[in-house]
């Protein structure tokens, strides 16, 4: 499981390859907060290659969303498969996050 960080224009895109779970959530948090510290404000998390997310993974996304908003930034989620999208719907976190069908869509709007 890895988190790849890349810049696309003024946005920072982080892809989650594998699982986002209790065992690696702090690694994602550190990567995003490091970019926030460097001045990045637009974030897209790309779930194209994500197998599953547990409640700790959802929790770290909630926590990061709050940190980014406090710095007047923006966090968007992209490319969730049907199972992952259902997870956000079940927990009603789809009301908290801006979810896009693809990274391209997330960057375009």
């Amino acid at each position: 499981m890895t988190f790849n960080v890349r810049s696309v224009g003024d946005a920072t895109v982080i892809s989650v390859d594998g699982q986002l779970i209790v065992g690696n959530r702090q690694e994602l948090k550190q990567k995003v907060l490091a970019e926030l510290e460097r001045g990045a404000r637009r974030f897209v998390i790309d779930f194209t290659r994500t197998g599953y997310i547990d409640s700790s993974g959802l929790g770290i996304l909630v926590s990061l969303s709050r940190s980014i908003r406090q710095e007047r930034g923006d966090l968007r989620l992209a490319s969730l498969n049907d199972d992952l999208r259902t997870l956000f719907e079940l927990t009603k976190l789809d009301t908290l996050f801006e979810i896009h069908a693809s990274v391209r869509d997330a960057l375009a709007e």
Partner: protein
Amino acid sequence: MNPRAAVLELPNDISAIETAVERAVDCCTTARLARNRLMFNFRVGLTEALSNAILYGNGGDPQKRVRVELRVRSGEVRARVTDEGKGFDPDAVPDPRLPENIPRPDGRGIFLMRALMDEVHYNELGNSVTLVLREGTPAAP
């Protein structure tokens, strides 16, 4: 098929969860559940049970251990996860879907287990949870 049983013993370490879940999935392939139910519902449900056991049940104590007992038969998997803690009342956990709880970063683990598995049972003490997933029943997604 005859029922198949397996036992996994884990150290009380969250870094052990992913490997344990993959070993459990390997044991359960003979149940012939639909792929996404095994690879998504079961993985998430078992991950939640293990992280609750390690972080809350055993309180992060590295001296304690977590036991997973698997029973697999055609169309059904059962996983019992037991920690060495004092237990808790799972019904006292608030609903994470309430508007005031949605912005909270925590409190979704038990809800997800119940939403994704067909049955979730705790023992009386609250330190052992049994997850049941079957084929052809409507656990989300």
